[in-house]
């Protein structure tokens, strides 16, 4: 029994990581209806930037965030203004195909720069540290990941609903023309949204890199996990996204407990079941 409680706790904590994958995806979809196929590769890029930073400056991966977060945010802003803004419009093909092309470019650039060998970020003692309570051992790193995920979602929620920046995001999302005549430059607002999304992605990438080994090819899988968390949780709801991540994580750890080969399959099946039963997700945003 306690064994299964442990499985569910681990799945929940894993869900925090998936929610971090999903948060950026959810944010940019909310602001500009863009689905970024390269999102997973950008997570992997952040992990590699973390790797380079830890090696060059000889610092802990967490310290590397001081470099990687602004770097990813800058990449996001430049990418949005330089390329992605040109794809936005009523036709869904251009953003989809351009981000798909971007995904292939990123993957192969990483392959060229870092080879296909799996890498890992060295987190030191925190990776093996664990807390135990009532016969239940919980890893400190997964716990920390979950806490960070909750904090990030709360932070994004606050930015979205309590700040002038978030007001701009919502206004542009509602009505681009009218936002523009209120003096908002939508190209800049979209750039800021992508910058914020990739700053979150930087955190996700570093935590991913400390948790497991990574290589340039794993981006697609991370995109799918983030996407599944978004759809399970319901479009447009950040807390729903966290719940979606947790459900996906728990489904995977339960699957893995039954048979190691079933981990990913169980997650996908949970997603398909939710899609069949509640196509709008479990916590869709209530429309005004």
């Amino acid at each position, binding site marked *: 029994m306690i064994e299964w409680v442990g499985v569910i706790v681990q799945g929940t904590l894993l869900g925090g990581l998936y929610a971090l994958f999903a948060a950026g995806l959810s944010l940019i979809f909310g602001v500009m209806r*863009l*689905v970024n*196929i390269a999102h997973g590769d950008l997570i992997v890029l952040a992990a590699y930037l973390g790797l380079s930073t830890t090696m060059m400056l000889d610092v802990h991966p967490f310290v590397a965030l001081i470099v990687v977060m602004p770097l990813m945010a800058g990449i996001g802003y430049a990418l949005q203004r330089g*390329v992605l803004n*040109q*794809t936005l419009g009523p036709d*869904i*093909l*251009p*953003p*989809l*195909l*351009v981000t*798909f*092309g*971007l*995904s*292939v*470019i990123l*993957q*192969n*650039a990483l*392959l*060229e720069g870092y080879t296909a060998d799996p890498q890992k970020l060295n987190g030191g003692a925190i990776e093996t540290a664990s807390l135990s309570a009532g016969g239940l051992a919980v890893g400190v790193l997964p716990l920390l990941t979950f806490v960070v995920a909750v904090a990030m979602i709360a932070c994004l929620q606050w930015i979205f609903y309590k700040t002038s920046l978030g007001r701009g995001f919502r206004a542009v999302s509602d009505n681009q023309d009218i936002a523009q005549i209120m003096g908002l430059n939508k190209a800049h607002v979209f750039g800021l949204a992508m910058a914020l999304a990739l700053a979150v992605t930087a955190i996700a990438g570093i935590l991913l890199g400390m948790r497991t080994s990574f290589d340039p090819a794993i981006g*697609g*899988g991370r*995109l*799918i996990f983030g*996407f*599944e968390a978004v*759809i399970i949780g319901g479009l447009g709801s950040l807390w729903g996204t966290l719940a979606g991540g947790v459900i996906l994580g728990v489904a995977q750890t339960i699957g893995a407990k039954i048979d190691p*080969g*079933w981990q*990913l*399959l169980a997650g*996908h*099946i949970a*997603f*398909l079941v939710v*899609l*069949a039963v509640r*196509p709008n997700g479990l916590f869709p945003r209530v429309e005004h």
Partner: protein
Amino acid sequence: MSAPTVTRATRASSVATVIALIALVLLAAAPWWAGRADMRLMGEILLYLSLACLWNLMAGYAGLVSVGQQAFVGFGGYMLFALTIFGGLHPIAAIIAAGGLAAIVSIPIATLIFRLKGAYFAIGTWVIAEVFRLSFAQVSALGGGSGSSLPVGIVKSLAASRSGREALSYWLALGAAVVVISAVYLFLRSRRGLALTAIRDSEVAASGLGIDIWRTKLEVYVVTSAFTAIIGGLIFLQKLRISPDAAFSVNDWTAFVIFIVVIGGIGTLEGPIIGTLLFFALRETLADFGTIYLMVLGLVAIVVMLKAPKGVWGLIRDRFDLELFPLSYRVRTATDKGA
């Protein structure tokens, strides 16, 4: 001046028909004039051409942008292996049966992922492909995660000699490409094809005209899935070896296909043909550079999408008002002989 007539054919399309027939005869005779490596390459080109036409029908005409077509390529490949090894079917029968099975499997899948809109539909198709990959990796009778080879006895049942097998497998690829292109062309010319074009132009107006959008899209999805599985079967009949990672590779069976269609011209029938030729020309010259080649390909696709969204064929068509597959109607008066 006599009364204007409405026609689909143009002089260019008539010329194209003649050229296509000559090319077809030449291609059919390839086993007598082409070397072994060239024939293998041409077979591959023809199979990619088929995949590109099918993806174009879905994405360019029906608005179903899938990044998960590898699901059906891999499914077709695995069905070839399963039905020949365990069902004792002849490989060609197995490949046709794979198409039928794919059509059946695609119906419940469509009812599920059609709930996702636009780009989310795209990622949904990818999830399905992952489910296929992970599921087939669990089947230990087919080699599990490491895959298996087609037994020698089955390979020999195609033709006794190696050159005979290679010729047969090439003709199958050629036949499949002809069937796929003709089927897509005839479909687009039919009433259903017109409905599809109406949906692409405006879903609201199309539903106002009494077109059942969901049903029309479902038909396209099911037919495309079936043909994609058949092509998948032919691909792995050439390779003679299958594994989950090769069968359900998003790069090989979807990324390349998307690049072909985008570069050639999405939403046109000529686009995939031009795109396939350009893709292989690029690959044959740049393949030694490996990753750089793929980056260039991605970059070219992005630039085309941003600067010339109708692709290379779109540029040619706008410049010369050409149409090799006569789909649109032209009003012509007796004095106007232009084409």
